[in-house]
């Protein structure tokens, strides 16, 4: 197949460029978030993430003069530095919000009561006062400064280790894994048998059943919540892990059956018929022939189902509950968002924490998946 493109270099280049563009379009949103998650809140709101690698000239948030005062030559002096990091260059500064760029670095500003302030280009400041500044509210310094690019993992520290009322993200992580793994395996197993029956076994009502399954695909989850929780409460499952496994199984089944059946129908008919002629039972055909051949489809659906259950929030809230030992990762992060909602740095870091595992699973399974898909070309 490769040789088709190989004949025309121009076409190959066109393919490379279009794939490049497509990939770029698809990853830009995520990269934006990834870059933002390593920047401080101030940086995120003062410059676009695509500028993160460059030195930024920007208006800094005001910093209040503070520090121990020293009596020198009859005046009191407070000295300090405005910025904790090196490399910041002040280009203009001021002492009032109305004129934040009134002075150049090295200038001296005279304030009321004989107080004067000097700010150097590197952010060092000195405040001189004829009287003691003890108990006095010291002025704020407004600066316009160029800051070098800076990245830190502080946001991740905050998200992963912030002491929010016993809400450990690791616990949430465990909870999510406890939900997602059984909720991935069980429906696939059940669906595989059903899909085989619908694809290769003759029985009355087959078309009707297929129609019903397609119809059930579209049932909005939300309307099933209350009747099902009622049933769970009535038969004694209540809210808990068993309940959510069953619920995910039920909700994932139609799509699993639908996709697997469509795949199995496409398998070569003669293999199955030969096996039948040889006297194999349906059970044997299924386990010995269909299952191995359907492996790629099973693997890809497993990935999808895992991603869905991992990323689910609504089903977990309703069927599992929200106490600390039941809170899933998405729930934990949404809670964090609710309480720290305006802060991009928290949002971005926590969103990345939530997608880390699905991404790892995907990249780990990917080789497997592609190999499986290749093996599937048996038509």
């Amino acid at each position, binding site marked *: 197949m490769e040789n088709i493109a190989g004949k025309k270099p121009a076409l190959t280049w066109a393919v490379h460029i279009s794939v490049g563009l497509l990939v770029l379009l698809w990853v830009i*949103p995520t990269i934006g*978030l990834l870059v933002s998650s390593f920047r401080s809140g101030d940086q995120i709101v003062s410059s676009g993430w695509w500028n993160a690698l460059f030195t930024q000239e920007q208006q800094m948030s005001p910093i209040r003069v503070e520090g121990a005062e020293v009596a020198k030559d009859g005046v009191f002096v407070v000295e300090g530095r405005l910025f904790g990091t090196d490399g910041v260059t002040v280009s203009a500064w001021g002492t009032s919000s109305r004129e934040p760029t009134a002075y150049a670095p090295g200038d001296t500003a005279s304030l009321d009561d004989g107080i004067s302030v000097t700010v150097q280009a590197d952010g060092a400041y000195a405040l001189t006062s004829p009287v003691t500044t003890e108990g006095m509210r010291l002025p704020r310094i407004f600066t316009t400064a160029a800051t070098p690019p800076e990245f830190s993992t502080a946001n991740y520290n905050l998200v992963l280790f912030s002491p929010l009322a016993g809400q450990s993200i690791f616990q949430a992580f465990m909870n999510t894994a406890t939900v997602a793994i059984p909720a991935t395996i*069980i429906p696939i197993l059940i669906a595989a048998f059903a899909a085989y029956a619908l694809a290769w076994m003759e029985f009355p009502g087959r078309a009707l059943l297929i129609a019903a399954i397609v119809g059930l695909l579209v049932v909005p989850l939300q309307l099933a919540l209350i*009747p099902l929780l009622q049933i769970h409460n009535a038969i004694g499952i209540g809210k808990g892990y068993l309940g959510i496994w069953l619920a995910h199984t039920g909700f994932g089944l139609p799509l699993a059956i639908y996709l697997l059946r469509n795949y199995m129908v496409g398998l070569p008919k003669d293999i199955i018929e030969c096996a039948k002629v040889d006297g194999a039972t349906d059970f044997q055909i299924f386990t010995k022939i269909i299952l191995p051949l359907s492996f790629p489809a099973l693997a890809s659906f497993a990935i999808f189902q895992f991603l869905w259950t991992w990323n689910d929030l609504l089903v977990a809230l309703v069927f599992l509950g929200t106490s600390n030992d039941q809170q899933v990762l998405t729930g934990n992060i949404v809670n964090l968002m609710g309480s720290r909602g305006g802060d991009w740095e928290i949002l971005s870091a926590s969103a990345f924490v939530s997608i880390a595992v699905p991404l790892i699973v995907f990249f780990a399974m990917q080789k497997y998946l592609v190999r499986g898909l*290749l093996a599937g070309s048996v038509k």
Partner: protein
Amino acid sequence: MEQAFLALLTIVIGVGGCVGYFWLSNIVLDKAIFPVGGPNANRNITRANAVRPWLFLLPAVLALGLYLAYPVFATAWLSLNRNEAGELVFVGFDNYRQMLGEDKFWESLRNNAIWLIVVPAMATAFGLLAAQLTDRIRWGNIAKSMIFMPMAISFVGASVIWKLIYDTREAGQTQIGILNAIWLKFDGGAGSFLLLRVLPALILLAGAAAILWVVWGQVRALSDGGTMAKALRVLGIVVGAWLAYVAVSWGFGAATAQLPYGQPQFWLQIPFWNNFFLMAVLIWLQTGFAMVILSAALRGVPEDTIEAAIIDGANPFQIFFKIKVPQIMGTIVVVWTTITITVLKVFDIVRAMSGGQQETQVLANYMYDKLFVAVDWGVGSASAMVILLLVTPILVWNVYNARKEMR
């Protein structure tokens, strides 16, 4: 630790239970109830084969019946009732009447129609494009992973990502949303003319041409098939012609519109178009799904058909559209159906990003609002029934396909 143990136990019991059930039930069927061999061997095999499908289907049917079918019937019943002080009162079609009288309902229906046309079409098209192109280059697998990546992102994460893209700051301030940053680079000069007028107009006209090509194919095939097929074709032609008309008029609009250059835009507040900015999120999420499935199907296209075409002197475009696409039509329909159904159910994106305000309401979110915010079970259930009703054409199509396969 207990939790990990519990999870492990479940996997073992669940999987073991399932395998055990299928295995044992087959043994019981073959050995105990209808033994193979003995006087009635043939009759027994026939009977066993009549029962076996149901053994295979039983767990699935039970789960589906309990978890999906039962709620549907419960909802259908609720949609005919009204909850008055905790008691259900039968009111006939009052809830539907009330719903049809609400502007928001019609707005949702209109928006859903747009979503149903745009999202599956774009996601499938992009997915097919990505699947075909990445198969031909060495770094295709990396490219595929990148395009698939959004699938791994929860709706919660996706809404954060796209809020950052659509973010708007006051004019004069530094924009931190990339869309506005790009938008502000356009100044109405030659570059803007090419990229914002000529390019979209051309894309839309090309889209119209493609639709018309399909419509023309249908017109030519009009004489084939039975009455049912003819009726479907006529419907397809009418819809296609209308879509082509819309694409042409939008292309004209794009070429002539007055664009507010230099002003940061509030993307999610531009009436009507804000729907498209929400759709972009779902297209971004679903393309990876389409790509993975379609890529598998493309690899399944037999080499000999392609080689024959190459020998006949077909160019790559002809190979793709005339040889490959027809052969994977079944998979395309599956992908299209799956995404259509996702669209019908979409509410997370709308809920998180716009709350259905500013004329972006869709049916699933309308239903959610009615069920859990307004606590109006009657109307909420009625709107759920409308969503279920919308799937009927897909249902008919799939039954039709399944029947064809069986022959």
